């Protein structure tokens, strides 16, 4: 389980930006997690309250956009979304592909702050 480490990385990135802006509180954080990022979204949600306690992010709402894996099928010559991460084959023609076009991302997309007017 390294999801708590990931939460700490999120806290560090958000706090740095939020402080620069003079924000006093972060109310929401939005992440994008690919199916091949090696992070379990439920475990992230579970770790979030612990990892953000005592920081500007304490009490903030976490939203995670989960992204499926997209591979490039050489035979169909197009990008195709696969279901899950156990079978890297084109769902149309069954050709295997190791050419990953989406699904490894682990991104901080945005956050919402409150600041004095």
């Amino acid at each position, binding site marked *: 389980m*390294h999801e708590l480490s990931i939460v700490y990385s999120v806290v560090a990135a958000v706090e740095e930006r939020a402080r620069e802006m003079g924000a006093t509180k972060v*109310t929401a954080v939005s992440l994008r997690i690919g199916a091949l990022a090696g992070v379990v979204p439920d475990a992230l949600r579970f770790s979030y309250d612990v990892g953000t306690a005592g920081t500007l992010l304490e009490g903030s709402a976490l939203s995670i956009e989960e992204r499926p894996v997209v591979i490039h099928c050489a035979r169909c010559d197009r990008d195709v979304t696969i279901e899950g991460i156990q079978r890297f*084959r084109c769902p149309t023609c069954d050709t295997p592909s190791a050419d990953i076009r989406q699904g490894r991302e682990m*991104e*901080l997309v945005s956050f*919402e702050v409150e600041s004095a007017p």
Partner: protein
Amino acid sequence: MTTRIVEVRRGILKKNDEMAAALRGRFEAAGVLVVSLVSSPGAGKTEFLQKTLLALRAQGLRVAALVGDLETDNDARRLAEAGVPVKQILTHGRCHLEAEWIGDHLADWPLDALDILFIENIGNLVCPASYDLGEAVRVVMLSVTEGEDKPLKYPTIFNGSDLAIITKMDLAAAVEFDRAAAHAAIASVRPGMPVLECSAKRGTGMAEWLAWLTARQAGQRQPATPA
């Protein structure tokens, strides 16, 4: 109070990724091939690496190893018996290595005096998948005693590797290891990845592994082809 939405769009592990990219640049400039090894606990990484270090040293290659462990320096001491430079990275309970610690432990090692540097990650098939260490190749190991479907259970790390090694082949018959099923599982999660079958104890398959490594190392040494 006013509320604002701040767009960021950056990698959560940007700091690690940047450090890994800087390390990769240093490794390439020094002409050292960096190979990381990942597996479950007990898959035989240390025994395999010890035999590998001995064999490469016998071939006249300059090799060294960084070994990650949660606690104890037992593995580093075992590896040091091969007579090559070895350093232990203790994570004190953390489940993976990060690029920063690799950089810290290499600070006083002259990289250009090395041909191949091995990084033995923590025995864990989950967490190391997310952390780039600046390695040129990641080798994932699976022992015959673990079950042929392990790649399907841990697809992320298998998908993010460059070579799979099936270890402890000397026990294959005793545990009724199904080779075809293991190869199929690996191919399903990482089409096209080369797979080697080895026994560090008996020495089988080690020649192929050493040939694979030295071919990669020679490629690394090659200066970039002028355009």
